[in-house]
């Protein structure tokens, strides 16, 4: 409506900007590359997500010290979706439409990712998602740097079955999409692969932030005294774990009797717990802070220096961001531009070092290769690694153990470019895939 005045103002603005650009050589010759950070800084999820925001900021700072990317400086654009799922979509839209960021690093819970998904797809953005999740999804615009179920849950169950000799299973989880889907996969897997009888599987769901575990722990104790080795596979989320473990300790269940293997408990969560009664309980991740490699120690040292906290801990989603950020940077370098479509094509096949002494490669289904580690909790809140996969495992977007999902594959390379290709029907089936995910 008033283009002329806008034009005039921008011309006036351009003069000092140009002179500033001339004054500083090398960097900032062009506009900075904008990196969006979409993590909750307030609300329930702030406990887990604030460190991820800091991680990306640290990585950006390190990259800028190395001279930026394509000769341009990186700039973080931080928004706070406040653990409010619909707000995630709004903030994502703000990042892509107003701030025009080149890439977004963000989200923790699956429900927030599902809320952001249509926005990122509509506006053709790039989203790096760093947390282990339930799978059954593959979007053209999302890169899943956390573990899919076959990179965490399945190997953990294998470990318990093969090495610990577990025959009876308690699948305990918080009542939302990730635990329910994961437990559905696990139940099918246990029955098909190990022939576990129905009465040897107990499934239990609890609300978010559940704090009264007396009855459930007592049930688990009872379930475990039937003469067969019993283990708990826990998809209990976030801080509900603290009272759960405390109750386990108080009712005298120790890890040699009934081990608990958790998929959502990492170093960060353990900082809120007195871990002495938990020693020996397990967690399955793709990274532990206690990994004994020089890259890892360097990362930890950088993190401690960045936070200024001598006791700061690192965890698996932080490593996922470390990998995702480096992959993106590598793809931008390879493509020679930050333009989304070019980066999307360039990133497939990119391999960058992970923190566990190997390499992570981006697969055509937008998932990455990861080693799977099983760790036992120590009294200092760290994990001691007791087992790891001999090589890395590629993330599988569609589980092979669920009806309807096992026929689907995802491949975003040309010419297929499909996130849910049905190999039986030979077609890219949108609606069906959604039905399978239900």
């Amino acid at each position, binding site marked *: 409506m008033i283009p002329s005045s806008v034009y005039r103002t921008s011309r006036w603005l351009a003069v000092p900007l140009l002179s500033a650009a001339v004054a500083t050589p090398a960097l900032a010759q062009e506009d900075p590359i904008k990196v969006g950070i979409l993590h909750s800084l307030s609300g329930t999820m702030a406990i887990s997500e604030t460190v991820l925001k800091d991680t990306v900021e640290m990585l950006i700072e390190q990259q800028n010290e190395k001279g930026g990317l394509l000769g341009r400086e990186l700039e973080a654009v931080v928004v706070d979706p406040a653990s409010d799922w619909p707000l995630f979509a709004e903030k994502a839209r703000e990042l892509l439409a107003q701030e025009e960021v080149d890439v977004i690093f963000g989200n923790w819970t699956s429900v927030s990712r599902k809320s952001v998904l249509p926005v990122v797809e509509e506006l053709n953005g790039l989203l790096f998602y760093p947390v282990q999740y339930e799978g059954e999804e593959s979007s053209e615009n999302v890169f899943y740097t956390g573990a899919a179920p076959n990179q965490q849950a399945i190997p953990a169950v294998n470990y318990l079955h093969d090495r610990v000799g577990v025959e009876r299973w308690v699948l305990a989880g918080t009542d939302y999409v990730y635990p329910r889907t994961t437990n559905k996969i696990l139940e099918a897997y246990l029955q098909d692969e190990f022939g576990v009888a129905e009465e040897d599987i107990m499934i239990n769901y609890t609300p978010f932030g559940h704090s009264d575990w007396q*009855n459930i722990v007592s049930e688990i104790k009872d379930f475990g005294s039937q003469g067969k080795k019993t283990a708990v596979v826990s998809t209990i989320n976030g801080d509900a774990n603290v009272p759960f473990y405390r109750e386990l300790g108080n009712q005298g269940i120790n890890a040699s009797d009934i081990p608990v293997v958790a998929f959502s408990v990492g170093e960060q969560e353990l900082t809120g717990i007195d871990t002495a009664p938990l020693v020996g309980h397990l967690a399955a991740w793709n990274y532990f802070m206690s990994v004994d490699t020089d890259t890892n120690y360097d990362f930890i040292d950088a993190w401690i220096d960045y936070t200024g906290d001598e006791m700061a801990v690192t965890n698996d989603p932080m490593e996922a961001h470390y990998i995702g950020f480096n992959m993106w940077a590598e793809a931008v370098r390879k493509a020679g531009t930050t333009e989304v479509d070019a980066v999307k094509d360039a990133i497939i096949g990119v391999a960058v070092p992970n923190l566990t002494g190997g390499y992570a490669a981006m697969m055509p289904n937008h998932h990455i290769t990861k080693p799977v580690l099983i760790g036992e909790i120590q009294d200092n809140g760290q994990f001691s690694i007791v087992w790891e996969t001999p090589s890395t495992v590629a993330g599988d977007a569609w589980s092979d153990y669920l009806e309807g999902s096992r026929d689907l594959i995802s491949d975003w390379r040309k010419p297929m470019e499909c996130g849910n290709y049905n190999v039986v029907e030979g077609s890219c089936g949108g609606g069906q895939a959604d039905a399978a995910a239900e």
Partner: protein
Amino acid sequence: MRMIRSFVPGLLLLFLLVGFVPVAQAQDDPGQALLESLATESYAEKSEAIEAIITSGDERSRRWLEELLDGKLQRHKDSGRFVIVVENRGRSWPVIDALSFDDAGEMSRRDLDRIGINNALRGQLQSALAVLDLYTDDVDDRREAARELLGSMDATLVEPLREVIADEGDAEVRRLLEQGLAIHRLSEGDIDAIAELEGSLNSRVRAALNSAARSDDPLIADAASAALDDIEQKRRLNSGLETLYFGLSLGSVLVLAAIGLAITFGVMGVINMAHGELIMLGAYTTWAMQQLLPGQPGLALVLSIPAGFLVAALAGIAIERGVIQFLKGRPLETLLATFGVSLILQQLVRTVISPQNRTVVSPDWMSGSLMINEGLSLTLNRLFVLGFALVVFAGLMLVMRRTRLGLEVRAVTQNRAMARAMGIRATRVDIMTFALGSGVAGLAGVALSQLTNVGPNLGQNYIIDSFMVVVFGGVGNLWGTLVAGLSLGVINQVLEPWAGAVLAKIIVLVFIILFIQKRPRGLFPQKGRAAEG
């Protein structure tokens, strides 16, 4: 954490175990070789190395096993020297030499290799240490050790344990050990062992009988099933009592969270949405107190009781003076304003302290459980909270019924104008009442810090439940709050096993809605003229 107990009897056992007397210590230090064999990737080899340490008779072996169990036994990567880590937090760790136990300065965690163990090895180490513990003088330690050995005895232990039983003075230890031996005999197909296990409620005994009941030998299977039937019957009674205890314990938490609200909302009629955050402040006070008194979690917890009360009461006064007094008689505005206050307090804690949860340590006397019998034990932390809730309730009743403040509060809430005419300073009473209610919320926070997470969201989890309890019990009635809280807790826990935690919560909520429809004034409605106001 384990202290080194007397070595000598342990050594005796080590000799008994294998009848092996160590050869005179040759050349350097045989310990180095023993530890060296632990530094392997294979857990099977580590297990053999542990066995070798146990049978070596080296007097340092106990310490080694304990440190290995704690993950403190580590190896310096370059020099191959074995050290024991004293404190394993941070980047650089103070260590002592594993052979001489002399101070060895500090080492970076980069340079140390931990001798990792898994649960199987942990079990092996715990049994080995438990066997040594059977020779200590402390009866409790011996009982603990005997319990630990239950279900994990193997053939090599049978003979030495028989001798232990013969010398043991304590009947409980003897019984536990004999039960353990019976489990071992049962696993080898001895049917007579079942008779010894009959009637025991121990879960490991049940596990053993359950696997025996699936045995191929029909005689053993039948006998085990019969023994199990008997045990199951006893257990049903115990689990009924257990559920009742769980219910009362959950109820006591509800009472604690709600009782402060019963004063501010029930008696004064102020809808304080920031009540949950006052609870949170109490919990953070406990955390702060533990930071001030490191190493004395028990003392810190006791001191937190008055401190938590004071902090929350002062915050309450600030809220009353700053917000609520201006909104007298406008419930909707009060609700919104105090909701705002609750958000401010949450974000304040996030910014000033941390968005992360804080660790509040439970003192030793509040961890573990009180064993009534082998099928029924009451968790100590919840037992303390239950008791604390009752004490707080009694104290509050005393204040309201027996003190001048209580009298004035009742007068002001019943008829403000008349009370003022009688010379009661109504504003001061308002402040005092609100401070009292808030302080009690702080006390709830101190107690909750022992049960749940101390984080910025602590209060939010309890605010709805608190209002529910107060409304259900009857607004303005403290007894109502007590009865409502305890009964809601019991109902919830009775429902939970068959409905699941999510559904149980919903059912309780629906029940309350229906109840309020029928009796809008709750369980114990206010009677008399005050009720009309």
